[in-house]
C-alpha cells in the first residue's frame, strides 16, 4: 500500500507563481472531475438518509397513528439504552459476528492449506468449496432449516440416529448454534479464498530455505506462513465482520430472532421495531446507536489494518 503516499505527488510545475496558481487550480479540477459523480452519489444516497435518521430519532412518531409526530429530544435514546432487548440484541450481534468470523477463518486457513499443494482434482475441490458463498443466502438459510436441521426429516438427525440422537429440533433447541453453523458454512469459502491468495503469494525461496534448514512443517507454518498471512487474515476478519454484523436474511428465514429474543441481532431488532412496531422514532434512535457502535469498532479495526499495511511496506 505505498499508494497512500502517492497523494502528495503533483504534476510538472509551470514557471510564474500566478500562472502556477491558475494552472494548479485548473489541473486540480481536472483531477477531481472524474471523482465527483461517485462522491456526490455516495453522499446523497448514504449520508442524506442517515441525517434523516438522526432527525427522526429526536421525534416521537408512530406510523399507524397519523399526526403523532412531535419533537421529544433524546427520549428515544434513553429508551434504547434502558431497553433490555437492545442489550440482548447487541450481545447476540457480537456473539454471532465473532463466532462466525473466527470459526470461518480457522476453517478457511485449514482448507486453504489443504488446497495449497498440488493434487489431482484441486480445481474441482476448490470449486466445490467456494459454492456456499455463491448460494443466495436466503436459499442457504431455507436449505439448512428444512433439509438439514428439520426435527423429523432433517439429514442431521438421520446421520446422527445411529448414535442415539433422535428427533432433535436443532433450530429451536440450539438456535444460536444453528445460526452460526449456517453462517460459518456461508463465510468459510470467503476466508479460504483470501488466505489461499495469501499462501500463493508467499515467497517460495523462503519456504525452501526453511525446509533446507531442517525446520519442521509446524515451525515453518508458525514462524513464516502465519506472519506472512497476517494481513490477509486481518483483511478477512475485517471484511467478514462488516458483512456478518449486518446479517439479516439468515435470521429472518431461520429463527425470526427467536425463540423469544435468543437470536435477535441488531438488524433484525431494528426491522421489528420499524416494520412490525411502526415506531419510526425508536427505530431511528436504535439505528443511530448501531451506526455509532459500528463506526467506532470499524474505525479502530481499519486504522489497525492501514497501519499493518504501512509497516509491511516500510
Amino acid at each position: 500500500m505505498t499508494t497512500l503516499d502517492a497523494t502528495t505527488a503533483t504534476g510538472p510545475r509551470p514557471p510564474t507563481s500566478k500562472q502556477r496558481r491558475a494552472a494548479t487550480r485548473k489541473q486540480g479540477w481536472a483531477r477531481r472531475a472524474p471523482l465527483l459523480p461517485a462522491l456526490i452519489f455516495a453522499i446523497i444516497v448514504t449520508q442524506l438518509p442517515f441525517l434523516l435518521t438522526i432527525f427522526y430519532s429526536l421525534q416521537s412518531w408512530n406510523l399507524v397513528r397519523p399526526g403523532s409526530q412531535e419533537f421529544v429530544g433524546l427520549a428515544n435514546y434513553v429508551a434504547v439504552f434502558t431497553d433490555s432487548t437492545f442489550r440482548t440484541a447487541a450481545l447476540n450481534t457480537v456473539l454471532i459476528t465473532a463466532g462466525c468470523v473466527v470459526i470461518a477463518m480457522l476453517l478457511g486457513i485449514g482448507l486453504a492449506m489443504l488446497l495449497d499443494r498440488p493434487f489431482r482434482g484441486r480445481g474441482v475441490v476448490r470449486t466445490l468449496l467456494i459454492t456456499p458463498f455463491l448460494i443466495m443466502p436466503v436459499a442457504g438459510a431455507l436449505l439448512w432449516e428444512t433439509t438439514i436441521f428439520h426435527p423429523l426429516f432433517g439429514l442431521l438427525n438421520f446421520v446422527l440416529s445411529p448414535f442415539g440422537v433422535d428427533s432433535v429440533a436443532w433450530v429451536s433447541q440450539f438456535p444460536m448454534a444453528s445460526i452460526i453453523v449456517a453462517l460459518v458454512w456461508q463465510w468459510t469459502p470467503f476466508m479460504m479464498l483470501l488466505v489461499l491468495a495469501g499462501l500463493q503469494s508467499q515467497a517460495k525461496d523462503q519456504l525452501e530455505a526453511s525446509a533446507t534448514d531442517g525446520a519442521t512443517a509446524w515451525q515453518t507454518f508458525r514462524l513464516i506462513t502465519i506472519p506472512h498471512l497476517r494481513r490477509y487474515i486481518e483483511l478477512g476478519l475485517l471484511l467478514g465482520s462488516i458483512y456478518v454484523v449486518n446479517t439479516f436474511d439468515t435470521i429472518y428465514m431461520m429463527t425470526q430472532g427467536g425463540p423469544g429474543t435468543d437470536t435477535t441481532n441488531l438488524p433484525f431488532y431494528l426491522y421489528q421495531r420499524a416494520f412490525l412496531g411502526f415506531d419510526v422514532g425508536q427505530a431511528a434512535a436504535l439505528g443511530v446507536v448501531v451506526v455509532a457502535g459500528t463506526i467506532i469498532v470499524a474505525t479502530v479495526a481499519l486504522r489497525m489494518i492501514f497501519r499493518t499495511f504501512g509497516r509491511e511496506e516500510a
Partner: protein
Amino acid sequence: MTVTAGESPQRAGSAARSASSSDGPPRHTGRAVRGVLLTTLAWVLGLAFFFPVLWMVLTGFKTEAEAFQSPPTLFFVPTLEQYAGVFERGVGPYLVNSLWATTASTLLVIVLAVPAAYALSIRPVRKTSDVLFFFISTKMLPAAAVIVPLYVTTQTFGIADNIWTLTVLYTAMNLPIAVWMMRSFLMEVPVEILEAAHVDGATLPQTLRRVLLPVVAPGIAATALICVIFSWNEFFFAVNLTAAKAATVPVFLVGFMTSEGLYWAQLSAAATLASLPVVLAGWIAQKQLVRGLSMGAVK
C-alpha cells in the same frame, strides 16, 4: 496473487530433493502416504461443504413424496415437475426484477467507480486517503440504520415498490467496494505505458481507451462480478422496500415460509433456480472472484 490450479513449483521441488536426499526411501513413502491422506481429506471436506447444495439440487428433481421419504432416497427418477410448479407460481416477474436491478446497478457502479478510481490512483487528487476512507465508511453504515428514512421517503415520493429505487440503493451499496477494487487494479498499471502513449501524441481519451482500458479489463470484470453477487443475493432492502411490483427473487423465496415444510421439492427447485446465475458466474470467473474478494488490496 491470482490463484491458479497449476503446480506450485516449490513443493514439487522440495519433494524431489527430499526424495533424493540421504533419508532414502522410508521418508519418501511417508510423504507419499501423507500426500494421499491430505488429498483425501481435501476431497472429503470439499464434498462435505458442497453436500447441502447437492442435496438441494437433487431434491428439486424429486416429487414431494420422495422429498419427504425417510430414509432419504439417493436414487429416483428425476422430474421437472417442480420447476414447472415454480414457474406456475409466478417466479417470472421476480426473475426479471432481479435481473434488472442487478444489471443496471452493476453498470452504474462501473460507470461511477472507474473514473473515481482513476482520480484516486493514476492522477491522484489531494486527500486521496480521506476520500477512500469516506467510501469504505459508507460500507460500515448498516443498511438497517437507514431503512426507516428510506421507507418513509419512498412512500412520501411515491417511489416505493419501484425497481429504480432498488437499483439506486444497490449501486450505493456496491460503490465503495468497487472504488477500492478498481483503484487497486489501476495502481498496478505502470505509469510508463501511459507516459509513452502521451509522448507518442495520443490524447487523453485515446490513451484511456486504447492503453488503459485493455490493461484493467480483467479488473473491471472482477469488480462487476462482486457487484453482481451482492446485488443478486441482496435481501434486506428488497424485502422491506418492495411489494408486488418490484420484488426480487429472494423475496419470492420468502413466500415458501408460510407453507414451510409442505413443498420441499418445489422450494428446492426454486432455491436452485434463484442461486444458479450467481453460482455459474462465480464458478466460471474464479480467478476474478479471488481478486475481487480481496479487493485487490493485498498483493
